């Protein structure tokens, strides 16, 4: 069973079964890694924010660079109006990044390789952005579906397409992250299995592949967190600054 490349995505209960009414909310390995990621973020950034020195030490530099990185990302994509949402996007980016990165440790569980987790995040973003859009612009937010400069003949078609693309945002956002993480980890597991099955004679090729894939996956882990955060910024930009 362990050689099954999908086995690593299994969720199992750790500790006793907790039930809220009839709903099972037991603490699982997925929950464990969510807690670990959050704690790691909190510890690192708390240590980084603790000292107030003119010349920052390593952790302080790390936290401050992340801060300015996310701040720049938001101001570049969504403008200055998005400043109140900075802390949310920062936590989102860090959470996804740390979950992805912790998933890279062997035998660890990748929280973001589960569609339900990414979908909840994406759905929350989608609903939140929609609410912000309607609060800022009222019914004028519906103009988002009517691009300017489109011939009247094409307008019904364009509106339908725009609505579909808008509604598919949470799905594309969640599936992008989930599929990337799942595919990468599955591939690494498959190549790892080849190393074992080909043995000492032929195992070197898949082993080198595995090494290369590890580097690639670390890149993908960062990139997907970045894409997740920047797409959130872009959706937020649509809601805050109605361009169409």
């Amino acid at each position, binding site marked *: 069973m362990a050689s*099954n490349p*999908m*086995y690593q*995505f*299994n*969720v199992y*209960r750790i500790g006793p079964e907790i039930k*809220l009414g009839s*709903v*099972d*909310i*037991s*603490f*699982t390995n*997925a*929950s464990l890694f*969510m*807690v670990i*990621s*959050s704690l790691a*973020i*909190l510890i690192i*950034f*708390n240590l*980084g*924010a*603790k000292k*107030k020195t*003119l010349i*920052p030490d390593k952790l*302080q530099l790390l*936290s*401050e660079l992340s*801060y*300015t990185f996310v701040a720049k990302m938001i101001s570049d994509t969504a403008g200055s109006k998005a400043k109140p949402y*900075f*802390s*949310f996007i*920062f*936590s989102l980016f*860090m*959470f996804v990044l740390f979950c992805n990165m912790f998933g890279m440790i062997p035998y660890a569980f990748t*929280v973001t*390789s*589960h*569609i*339900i*987790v990414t979908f*909840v*995040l994406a759905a929350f973003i989608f609903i939140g952005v929609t609410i912000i859009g309607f609060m800022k612009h009222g019914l004028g937010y519906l103009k988002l579906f009517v691009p300017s400069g489109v011939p009247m003949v094409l307008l019904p078609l364009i509106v339908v397409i725009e609505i579909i693309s808008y509604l598919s945002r949470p799905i594309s956002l969640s599936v992008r992250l*989930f599929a990337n993480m*799942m595919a990468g980890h599955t591939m690494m597991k498959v190549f790892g299995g080849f190393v074992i099955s080909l043995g000492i004679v032929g195992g070197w090729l898949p082993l080198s592949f595995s090494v290369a894939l590890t580097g690639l996956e670390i890149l993908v882990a960062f990139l997907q967190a970045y894409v997740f955060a920047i797409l959130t910024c872009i959706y937020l930009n649509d809601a805050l600054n109605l361009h169409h």
Partner: protein
Amino acid sequence: MLKKIIILVFVTCFACFNTIFAAESGGMPQLNPEFWISQIFWLIITFGILFIVLTKVILPKISDNLETRKSQILENIETADKQKEESQKKIDEYEKIILESKIKAKNYFNDAREKILEDINKKRAALEKDINEEISSTENELSEFKKSSGEKVTKIAAETSAELIKELIGEGVNSSSIAAIVEDQAKINKERKDVI
């Protein structure tokens, strides 16, 4: 119409779930809904706590740090600019002083030179005067001596020629006539010399 749509939605949902469960049984644990609620629950809790702590505690500290650093750096730059200006002033003053002292030194030097030159000129003039006097006196002496020597020579020549004639002829010749002859001869000689 509405009924049709509702039925369609149900059918597609059913098909989706069917395929999802088929995939799950095919080996995708992600599509097993057994722990979905648990995952959502823990996601909300952990992410909520993370978000709240970051927003309330950590991020303000970091932005505070960045702000204070920025302001401190700006302050430092300001003071550095001030000090730079001051040092520029000091440098200007210093250069001014140096220039003035240079001019002064030049003046001193020129004065001293002039004095020395004057002194030298005076001394030289005095010396030249002395030398000229000496030269003129010597020249006078020389010319006098020349004159007197010429006369003496003619005298000696006259006497000698008189003695010679006496010895040769045996009788004395008028000394004045001999003197006249000698003088004539000397004149001729002189003229010859002058011509030559």
